[in-house]
């Protein structure tokens, strides 16, 4: 070990470093090769499978956003347009009116519009909806189940690890391709 000349260890270290860098590049290349077949340009987004959703209410509280990115959406084609909508009214409503004591929605996010006798249309005001799933529970239990929860992608920041997914009791959250970002209810078979 001749350490008297200053240049020698430096060059030795430089050599080692060079080798390690090559190794690092090779490792990255290998990683790239391993992933090459599996990566794709399209990304993933989170979505709720309405068939697995248990309407527990976690979506309103667990999202990292101040106002959850999960909202109630309405599959109008499945809706019975009931007068006594169990998604809109409290169980045993005092009267079938839009008064606060009769409404199930805590934020008054569901609008009830008369269409024709005896049918009413229910639409969701997303600005107001907090994703608490009270209406979803009511509609699924006693109605057609046309109200259900979905992650709205104009709001979702698409966290790498969805905070709601981790606490979902129904294991209803999953990654879906960004090109098909919604799992809408289209039939009762679901």
């Amino acid at each position, binding site marked *: 070990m001749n350490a008297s000349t*200053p240049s020698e260890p430096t060059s030795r270290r430089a050599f080692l470093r060079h080798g390690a860098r090559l190794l690092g590049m090779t490792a*990255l290349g290998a990683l790239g090769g391993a992933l090459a077949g599996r990566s794709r340009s399209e990304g993933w987004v989170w979505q709720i499978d309405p068939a697995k959703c248990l309407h527990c209410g976690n979506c309103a509280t667990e999202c*990292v*956003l101040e106002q959850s990115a999960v909202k109630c*959406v309405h599959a109008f*084609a499945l809706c019975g347009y009931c007068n006594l909508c169990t998604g809109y009214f409290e169980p*045993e409503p005092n009267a079938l009116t839009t008064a606060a004591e009769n409404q199930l929605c805590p934020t008054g996010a569901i609008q009830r519009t008369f269409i024709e006798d005896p049918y009413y249309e229910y639409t969701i005001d997303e600005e107001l909806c907090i994703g608490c799933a009270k209406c979803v529970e009511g509609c699924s239990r006693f109605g*057609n189940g046309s109200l259900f929860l979905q992650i709205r992608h104009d709001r979702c920041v698409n966290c790498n690890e969805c*905070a709601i997914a981790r606490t979902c*009791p129904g294991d209803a959250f999953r990654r879906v391709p960004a090109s098909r970002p919604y799992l809408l209810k289209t039939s009762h078979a679901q």
Partner: protein
Amino acid sequence: MVSTLCLFALGGESPAEQRFPPPDFTETGHQLPVTTTPPPRALWVHYLDVAVLAGALALALWLIYKKRSRRGLFWLSIFSVAWFGFWKKGCVCAIGAPQNVAYALFHPEYAVPLTVVAFFALPLIVALFAGRAFCAAVCPHGALQDLVLVKPVKVPAWLEHALGVLPFVFLGFGLSFAATGSGFPVCRYDPIVPIFRLNGPSLMVALGVLTLLLGLWVGRPYCRFACPYGALLRLAALVSRWRVRVTPDSCTQCRLCENACPFGAMREPSPGVASPPFVRGDRRRLAALLGLLPVLVAAGALIGHRLGPAVAKLDPTVALAERFLQQQQSPVDHGLMTPEALSLQRAERDPKGLLQAAAEMRGRFVLACALFGGWVGLVLGVKLVSLSVHVRRADFEPDRGACFACARCFRSCPQELVRLGLMPAAEAPRPASEPQAVNA
């Protein structure tokens, strides 16, 4: 309440069925509204992010190596904080990306998006060639902490070295956890992202505020003592082709740069040859530590192996299975319609499937934790060994791995000031001894 319960009981079995046929609106001809589906971020937006990342990296390199401008990096930091931080709300980010890669490696069904691969690889490639330019001003986490640094306090070198182990531990934890497919703990326990989002889990918001407050005095606390991606970049930067140099010309060993670095990355010159009385002791210690290395790895792997079931509790499936089994032994009333009760109901529907899934997941955790434990042992051993090896240094120079390339030291150097014409050459300090050549 009673009536509610009755109704619930009635509704019980099949939650979705067509109880009320949809009307056809023959009278009014009412058209059904369409359920809107606002699209997620378009693909080109993701590519734009990658382009911005690449551009910012290139700009950072230019500012560090060519322009040697702290001011430029400062404004780039502000841009990065604004763009990747507050605008993109912290996702997508390079710090979390290694987990996606680990997850993709072990789960063929997960096609990792190219954006994520780019965020993972670009800063690493840059670090392999030119050091941690990403940390300097591109990473919003680092940039934000750099911006809030007011009055740097020098962390003692021994503490710096000791705590420097933690990012590697966190890296190992994050990667092994992600490899099991259970989740991404690095993202979950990220204190800075809640700041960018102005919201988040209370614990993480509090941690983020604490990190920033600490960051007023301690330079980049998260980067130095926690950031797992920083650990990766550190490794890459250790072998980088080019490096940040304090002075473009020759070092006069005036020690001014030592003070300029708020991150404790400046290393002083060292003769490299120990005085004879120390040599034997040094060699013996090095040999002992090299011998200890495999022991540490084995011990770590052993502990990690036993650790598996404990860590597996963090997995929702395992947690549910355990709660289910506990519930069987000593029932707890969780109340009606609570998430706990609902998940237990789900468990009861298919206990076999759940237990099998939980068992499989825990098996993965046992393996991953054994690897993690071995990694911790390795990190510790290598750290001890590296602290026992003499590195010969002729000049004051930033440590390749620890340097964030923030460019603060440049203008602390009188030689640089002379070069820029900000100081007459006559006023610059001259080396007491013979000026030492700089290896280019």
